[in-house]
């Protein structure tokens, strides 16, 4: 048992909820205005507490029963009911705990209060820890308290409380999961991260074209695929979205002015910037890790040759990064910001290279028959995921940069493309046609636990927020 310091404090969720209250594009009102409330100061009492461990070599077994509604109104009851299943899935996603299936303890009565937890019943289920949560109505929303209790010692291992709106119970679950993972496992969870992708689900057609062409719009979703929202509404082709490092903006390639250009949607303000303008074609923006610059591919050299360029976020200080008669495209930044990985077909087939952000030090990384869409892990492992042609279609592979070792994560079920790392380097999102249409899936970095997270229309080119 490790002894760590725990702070049991009250934080206001309003900032986080505000962040979740997305305006889904220019002119759209935020769907969930954050309850304006004063942020109570952290109430400290620092205590000594413990992490819960499982049996030897086994992850701790956790139970996540329904939260207790301490107020009789329907809204409080609904929030209490909604949190636990989401928290269960969030905790289950990182595989740091062995989650005991919720239906196995459906018969255990929900405690009336935190003092009323039936520890003996939880011991019967071989639970190492049990979540005890309460929801209470407040003047502006709800007060949510969560404790992780050690079933053997009956001591609290983790505790926190939150005040915020009742509009988005999922966000309490996501926040609890991330903080619990950090407290108990020292892990940066991804429950509050989001995905962006483009989709033809609206079935709208491009105007002004002779062939019937489907529009694609940019969407966002929680990491688990829920709370999907449309970001662009321009009825054109909008593709290759990427999150700014602060998660507040999305850069994407849009054909709304006929030729492809890079646009930036500031999704919380509902404003838009045009990063590139004019007569050239500009594609595939990638943010620097500090968010101050973007790299993109453009044919602006006059010869129509696709090269990489780097530009400040405000469109200033444009400079050319690559210079080769072959195509140089699909950039991605290393987490350090000093290197950029990209795709070039200078050997005759598209392969992944790295180059310094200063344009020096070119290095070929892959020797596949065809490789595209590098995504550089920002986790502790220094590896790049990419899509490689493995047959009639593509599969996701990962190369470890230090050793050059390649591992394949998908194996010809449909075609698999556009990998993007979760910010903790433990998961990947990608697209696959394995279920028919093109959909976004997530999986572990070992290729296991593949889960489909979109289902309406076709969905393409996911990018995981940082």
């Amino acid at each position: 048992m490790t002894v760590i310091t725990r702070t049991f404090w009250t934080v206001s969720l309003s900032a986080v909820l505000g962040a979740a209250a997305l305006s889904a594009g220019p002119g759209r009102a935020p769907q969930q205005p954050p309850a304006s409330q004063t942020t109570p100061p952290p109430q400290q009492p620092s205590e000594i507490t413990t992490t819960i461990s499982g049996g030897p070599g086994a992850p701790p077994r956790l139970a996540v029963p329904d939260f207790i509604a301490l107020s009789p109104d329907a809204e409080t009851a609904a929030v209490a009911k909604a949190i636990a299943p989401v928290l269960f899935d969030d905790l289950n996603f990182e595989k740091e705990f062995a989650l005991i299936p919720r239906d196995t303890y459906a018969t255990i009565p929900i405690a009336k209060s935190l003092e009323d937890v039936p520890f003996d019943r939880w011991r019967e289920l071989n639970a190492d820890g049990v979540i005890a949560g309460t929801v209470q109505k407040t003047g502006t929303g709800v007060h949510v308290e969560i404790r992780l209790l050690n079933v053997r010692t009956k001591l609290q291992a983790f505790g926190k409380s939150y005040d915020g709106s009742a509009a988005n119970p999922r966000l309490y679950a996501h926040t609890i999961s991330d903080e619990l993972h950090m407290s108990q496992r020292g892990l940066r969870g991804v429950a509050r991260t989001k995905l962006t992708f483009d989709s033809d689900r609206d079935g709208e057609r491009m105007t002004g074209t002779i062939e019937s062409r489907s529009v694609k719009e940019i969407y966002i979703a929680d990491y688990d695929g829920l709370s999907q929202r449309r970001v662009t509404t321009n009825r054109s082709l909008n593709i290759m979205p990427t999150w700014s490092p602060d998660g507040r903006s999305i850069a994407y390639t849009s054909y709304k002015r006929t030729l492809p250009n890079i646009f930036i949607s500031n999704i919380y303000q509902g404003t838009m910037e045009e990063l590139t303008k004019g007569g050239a074609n500009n594609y595939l923006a990638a943010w620097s890790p500090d968010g101050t610059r973007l790299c993109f591919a453009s044919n602006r050299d006059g010869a129509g040759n696709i090269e990489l360029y780097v530009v400040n976020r405000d469109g200033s200080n444009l400079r050319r990064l690559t210079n080769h008669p072959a195509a140089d495209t699909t950039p991605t930044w290393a987490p350090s910001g000093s290197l950029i990985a990209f795709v070039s077909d200078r050997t005759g087939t598209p392969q992944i290279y790295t180059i310094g952000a200063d344009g020096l030090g070119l290095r070929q990384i892959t020797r596949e028959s065809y490789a595209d869409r590098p995504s550089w892990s920002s986790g502790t492992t220094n590896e790049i995921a990419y899509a490689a042609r493995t047959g009639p279609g593509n599969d996701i592979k990962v190369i470890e940069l230090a050793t050059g070792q390649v591992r394949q994560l998908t194996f010809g079920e449909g075609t698999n493309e556009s990998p993007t790392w979760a910010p903790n380097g433990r998961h990947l999102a990608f697209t696959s046609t394995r279920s028919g249409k093109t959909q976004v899936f997530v999986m572990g970095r070992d290729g296991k636990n593949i889960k489909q997270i979109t289902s309406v229309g076709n969905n393409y080119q996911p990018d995981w927020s940082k």
Partner: protein
Amino acid sequence: MMRLGRSTLTLVAVGLLLTVACGKKKPPIAVPTPPPATAASATPSTPRPPAPPEPVAEPVIVPAEPVKEDAIASGSLDEINRNSPLKPIYFELDSSDISSQGRAVLDANAAAMKQYATWTVTIEGHCDERGSAEYNLALGERRAVAARAYLVSLGVSADRLRTVSYGKEFPFDAGHDESAYAKNRRAHFVITAK
């Protein structure tokens, strides 16, 4: 064809007008103001003023044939593109090389662009679904650029030719077999101004 139809309509319209004019023998306003008896009026037996409505439409009707404009160029941009004299060219997998068949098509496209010397054209590069979405943007660009370079070599001004790549975003044929792929690996010519 269109013009003929329009002339026929105009004729009918004028005919109708005349009929109406004849039917109304005495336009109420014209009657009370008889022409002043001048020396020049050699026909004293005509108290009514000459009906003036006809001459306006008449001359336009006659020359329907000589004005016959180019059936292609006279349409709207949409109409022109729907029945475009500029035909697409097709590529091999992963390739932007122009085949001899493609060159023949481009020769004809260049001739059409010389005939319609005011047209500006956007060359769209497209790919089949086997390549990855991101790299296909570059491949599509290269196909469009290859087509443009060949047209320029035939004397079409580069100013009149823009390129754009759609990668594999807009397949012409939604199928998942080689016959669909072959149709999707293409450079497509869109007239954007005439």
